[in-house]
């Protein structure tokens, strides 16, 4: 009974999701349900903050600084999605009360993921999250693209879950345990079976974080899904899967890191490079953001590949900054609306600064930040990633990283070019609704003014990795 107290946030989200589901059946007030979901997520954040750090259920479920930070980030991502949902639900034909509830279930799954210290808990969290996401991607039933996105995501996601489960069974079979720490104690480092297990589990997780070569679903799903859901894909699940990846690798195979380091090394380089080149040719801004997120995951994976406290610290800094930048960018995408129709082509941004000077300069600065140009926040993310890489003597990774960042600067600059240098088109609605404003302005100002005093974020990240080093 005492143990239940340690999973209060999860229980709270679960109960509120169930209650809202019943409530939604009887009263068709979608906005109310959405607002209550936001409220319950806020309460969940408060509960997470006040949670004691402990591992429970025979060490299969861990609450520590690391998981708390990830849970807060995930909850923020979910809240942002729900706030975006308020203004866009009718025009995007996703005016369904299931939306907030699915987000809640997905958030619950992700919370389980980042706390999981056991292969089974990990799989349960992952599946709960994924199943909700499959439905969310296809939520706009009348849109061919959305249905395609849902089906594609489902088929590939199911395949990756299969791979993951296959890997889990191998690991269980060769180490005799499902608990991460016990695997670490009992493994035999010469065992080929374990290695196969790691490879399959990593393949499954790489799919979830959309790292190359398991990225193929990302552009299509990003493009097809309604924009708030695309934002959700970019914000929460990747961060959660990254947390899970770190916990899985560091807790169970921390000592045989030489075996998996090169895998991470490869997918990191492949993600950065492929994203930098593939994004150049994109015409749809959501597709471009998909490749951008693949590239950013590549950078974040450098932090994992370093296998050091600096590496993990830089990973956390990077993910936090990535979260905030994406909030601003996706809110801006959501504001590209004219007469109730949304625009997604990059060419639609043409000459935007004439009509929306203030919004445009902020979006342009977000693009510079994504490209990693100082003094914006994105630069500090990259800076710490490279600090970690050089400290672990991964010079090759660092040089590939900076080359990829120069190449990727090109496609971010292309957006700036289209917004500023091209002929203006008709006016958009712009960031004119309160719900968008509360997301757009704070997040973009945070990115722009981050350089004034970045120390707290860095210290906070150092605090959050205490349980690993």
């Amino acid at each position, binding site marked *: 009974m005492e143990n239940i107290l340690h999973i209060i946030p999860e229980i709270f989200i679960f109960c509120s999701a169930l209650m809202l589901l019943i409530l939604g059946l009887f009263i068709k007030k979608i906005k109310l349900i959405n607002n209550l979901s936001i409220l319950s997520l806020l309460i969940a954040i408060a509960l997470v903050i006040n949670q004691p750090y402990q591992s429970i259920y025979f060490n299969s479920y861990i609450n520590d600084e690391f998981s708390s930070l990830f849970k807060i980030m995930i909850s923020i991502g979910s809240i942002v999605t729900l706030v975006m949902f308020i203004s866009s639900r009718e025009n995007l034909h996703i005016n369904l009360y299931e939306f907030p509830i699915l987000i809640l279930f997905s958030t619950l799954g992700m919370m389980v993921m980042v706390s999981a210290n056991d292969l089974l808990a990990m799989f349960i969290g992952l599946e709960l999250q994924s199943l909700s996401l499959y439905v969310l991607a296809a939520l706009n039933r009348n849109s061919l693209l959305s249905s395609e996105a849902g089906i594609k995501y489902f088929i590939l996601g199911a395949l990756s879950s299969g791979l993951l489960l296959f890997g889990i069974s191998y690991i269980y079979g060769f180490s005799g345990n499902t608990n991460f720490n016990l695997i670490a104690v009992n493994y035999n480092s010469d065992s080929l079976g374990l290695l196969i297990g790691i490879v399959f589990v990593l393949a499954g997780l790489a799919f979830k974080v959309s790292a190359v070569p398991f990225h193929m679903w990302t552009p299509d799903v990003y493009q097809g899904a309604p924009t708030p859901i695309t934002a959700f894909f970019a914000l929460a699940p990747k961060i959660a899967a990254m947390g899970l990846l770190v916990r899985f690798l560091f807790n169970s195979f921390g000592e045989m890191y030489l075996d998996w380091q090169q895998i991470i090394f490869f997918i990191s380089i492949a993600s950065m490079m492929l994203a930098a080149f593939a994004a150049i040719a994109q015409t749809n801004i959501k597709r471009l953001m998909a490749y951008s997120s693949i590239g950013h995951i590549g950078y974040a994976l450098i932090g994992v590949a370093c296998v050091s406290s600096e590496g993990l610290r830089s990973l956390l800094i990077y993910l936090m900054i990535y979260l905030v930048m994406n909030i601003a960018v996706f809110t801006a995408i959501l504001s590209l609306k004219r007469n109730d129709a949304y625009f997604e082509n990059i060419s639609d941004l043409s000459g935007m600064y004439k009509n929306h000077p203030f919004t445009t300069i902020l979006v342009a600065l977000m693009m510079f930040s994504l490209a990693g140009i100082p003094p914006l926040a994105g630069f500090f993310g990259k800076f710490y990633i*490279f600090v970690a890489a050089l400290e672990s003597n991964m010079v090759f990774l660092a040089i590939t990283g900076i080359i990829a960042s120069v190449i990727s600067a090109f496609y971010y600059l292309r957006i700036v*070019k289209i917004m500023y240098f091209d002929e203006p088109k008709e006016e958009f609605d712009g960031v004119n609704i309160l719900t968008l404003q509360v997301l757009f302005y704070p997040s973009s100002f945070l990115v722009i003014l981050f350089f004034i005093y970045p120390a707290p974020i*860095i210290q906070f990240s150092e605090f959050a990795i205490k349980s690993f080093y």
Partner: protein
Amino acid sequence: MNELPILSILILLPIFGIFFMTLIRNNNDQSSNNLKHTALWISFLNFLISLYLLFAFNQQDADFQFEERYFWIENGISYHLGVDGISILFIVLTTMLVPICILASYDSIKFSVKEYLISFLALETFMIGVFCSLDLVLFYLFFEGGLIPMFLIIGIWGGERRVYSTFKFFLYTLAGSVFMLLAIIYIFITAYTTDVSYLLDYNFTQNEQIILWLAFFASFMVKIPMWPFHTWLPDAHVEAPTAGSVILAGVLLKMAGYGFIRFSIGFFPEASELFAPLIFTLSIVAIIVTSLIALVQEDMKKLIAYSSVAHMGFVTLGIFTFTVQGIEGSIIQMISHGIVSAALFLCVGVVYDRLHTREISRYGGLVNKMPLYAFTFMIFILASLGLPGTSGFVGEFLVLMSIFSINTYFAIFATTGVVLAATYSLWLYRRMIFGALIKDDLSEMFDLTRREIIIFVPLIILTVFIGIYPKPVMDIIEPSAKKIVSQVNGKLN
């Protein structure tokens, strides 16, 4: 007196101005005039503050002055500002050129005035920051941050091929600078700090020095620019609006020269000595080749841009002689080039505003219609080719003298650059100003307006003053230059 954080004020005042200007509406001529006046006064105030800085600066002291240090990111990376004899003149140059630029764009910028002025003020912040910062990460922040406003200035208000030019400018500079970023990170993890005043006393091993030097070199050689990575400069100059060219030639190129003196020589003396022949060779190739290229240019701005590359060749020559004369000469050459090339671009801007072409062959015989302009232009052309009595002479003379003391052959080749400079400059002048006024559309030309005279007068005074009596300037530079040279020699022996 030193309690006042004067360097932070210099850096933050333009930001304050930006904040103030975002509150001003921009919907009619009156309000855009208000914006221009606000920006002008803010930048002028900044100039006055920098004059105060120059006045309060202790010329005998070779160390960093007006130091400010606050905790910033983590231990080892702090917000550390300070100036010495090397950097202070660049700060004054920057704060002087920005109001001139704003004044020069009063009439030539027709649309999006607010964004333009905001970009300029942001650029000023970054430029001052580069010369003040005594922390490598802070330096990099300002060094790279300046790309954003410059990208917009060229891209939005530039000429026909502005998109190509601004992308080229941005990507060239970025590609060079990221290697410097890696070098800075490497310094941070080996020395545990990026504080410049600490690192000046730190000894890197020789292998480290070579790699780090090359990484810094990659960044600075693109920025200064050295042959063969100079090709972005003519493009950027040609397409940039007049004021953009002025700042680009006047200040942005000097960041790299400053970086060479402060970082390349200061941190990596052994590697600098090792690579000095390379620098000399590249500089001399740059001086001769780009001077020859300048000879055949049809476009005024391109000609001046290529001459900038040649002049920067003298700067790098002087720096890597490791002599007090050479370093002093390079700094004076940079200051002088900052004034003279800025003025030359302004001169081009004057006729461009009237005739909207930069083709040299479209002009001729302007002296008949624009005597004042002809006089002004002549002073700067002469200063550019290094005539004794102008600021251009002092720098070139010192640099050539120092290079003579090192290696006669290099000196002989470098001196041919002076002759070539005279050729292309005077020929440009002859084609534009002298001759009969036969072209029809030139009959409408009118002489300098009062605003343009106000712009040129301080530049003329400075050019002649430094040329005739360079002692006050050299007094400021000398202690710090001596200190650097003695430090380098101390490390080498």
